[in-house]
């Protein structure tokens, strides 16, 4: 068991949360190529180390939050910025937003 720092509720047990996914930037659906879109849908960085992730606090504030977690030790720490929404956590839209590691933190 480890705990996740929720910006609204404080440090809470991981069992209250649902893991949503790695933080990634959604490409613009109007301009993205099929390759960019599928890379956004499927590809994972899957790092062994610090990873910026999106979690859903289902048994708490019911908000999508951004968290930084070490995937080997499961240590967590808050990230500086709150995520935008849903899957697209902690990223800023950039012209080449298809590259999922554009917003990597480690």
């Amino acid at each position: 068991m480890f705990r996740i720092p929720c910006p609204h509720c404080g440090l809470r047990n991981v069992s209250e949360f649902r893991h949503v996914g790695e933080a990634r930037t959604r490409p613009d659906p109007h301009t993205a190529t099929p390759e960019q879109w599928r890379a956004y849908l499927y590809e994972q960085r899957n790092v062994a180390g610090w990873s910026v992730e999106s979690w859903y606090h289902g048994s708490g504030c019911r908000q999508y939050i951004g968290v930084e977690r070490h995937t080997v030790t499961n240590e967590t720490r808050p990230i500086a910025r709150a995520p935008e929404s849903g899957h697209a956590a902690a990223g800023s839209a950039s012209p080449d937003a298809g590259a999922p590691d554009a917003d990597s933190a480690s």
Partner: protein
Amino acid sequence: MKRRGRPTTYSAGGLVSRGLTHREWPPAWRRHDLQATYDVVVIGAGVHGLATAYYLAANHGIRKVAVVDKGYVGGGGSGRNTAIVRSNYLTPEGVRFYDRSVKLYERLAADLNFNVMFSQRGHLTLAHNDGSLRTMRWRAEVNKLEGVDSQVISPDEIAELVPFMDVSADTRYPILGALYHPPGGTIRHDAVNWGYARAADALGVEIHQNTEVVGIDVEDGRVQGVRTTRGHVSAPVVVNCTAGWASLVSELAGVRLPISTHPLQAAVTEPVKVFLDTVVVSGTLHVYVSQTDRGELVFGASTDPYPSYSMRGSLEFTEELAGHVLELMPSIAKLRVLRQWAGLCDMTPDFSPIMGVTPVAGFLLDVGWGTYGFKAGPVAGEAMAELVATGRTPEIIAAFDLARFQDGRLVGEKGAAAVGH
């Protein structure tokens, strides 16, 4: 003296003679210095990597092969799974593929001259609701079409096969039926690893333990070799047969995969008198149970609900597991859990593996095996060896290529791969 290509024969006579004379057994495989060049480098000395190397040498005569591993033979997923073998999948591609594996397992002990303790004791997948009963019927029909023995059986028939199971209607999740798969069963996973390693070694394959790959050299879109903690090796073909670290190894060659790594925990109880003959799986209760020859009950569950490379066991897992197992078999409530462990599972979006070529020429994949990699070891090795030797993707693995994610051809094995071991 042994002949090249045949491992030393184990026999009852040899056992008696060595027992009486206390002569040392020869090592099952040798140590080597790392050479500068190989025809093929296989990354990962688990069942997939060793089987690939063995079939390269045995079926295609390619013997200048190095199997490198950062740990020891069978120390990853190949030694951490619950050793269940079955072929009752949902898609025709899946059924054909895993059935070939069961067939290879059936004759593996004779092929390798190594007792792999394959016990085809029958495999039951329980249905607790109408939806899963319907999927079971679907699976049974697909299996029959592919010539695989599977049938849906009633709770009374389940009670005959598994006397300790609670098949009454007044439980939280009543059992409505089960998919019964007689050729399924369990195997000694370490013996499979050691048997392949020993047979591959006898054919001239070099197994390098404690040799971590730290880089993969790629020039002009073609793989040149690997850099390891013991030196540089050049090779025209590099096969990634890792589990757990598949994304990180592929990233070294610049290939990004649709994989997230989840831990999967398992546990065994203290040994008791043998009472459970079949393998019992419940997708609804997220649990599967079998009994070893020693009498321990082996339990597995679903993967942890978030990706991680941590192999620590957790109390939540044990608590949840115990609750689910007792739902099925209330009479084992006094049994104590002896130990628990975790292994890493590379989950793909469609619960199917990723096998074959990549955008980097010469860099091949046999990864993404999720929670079902061990049972596929022999067929995966056979198919990867054929791919390396002929340069053409064998039909049996064509559906599992990496390009399916770009082309939108996902395989959709979720109905039979999640939890159902």
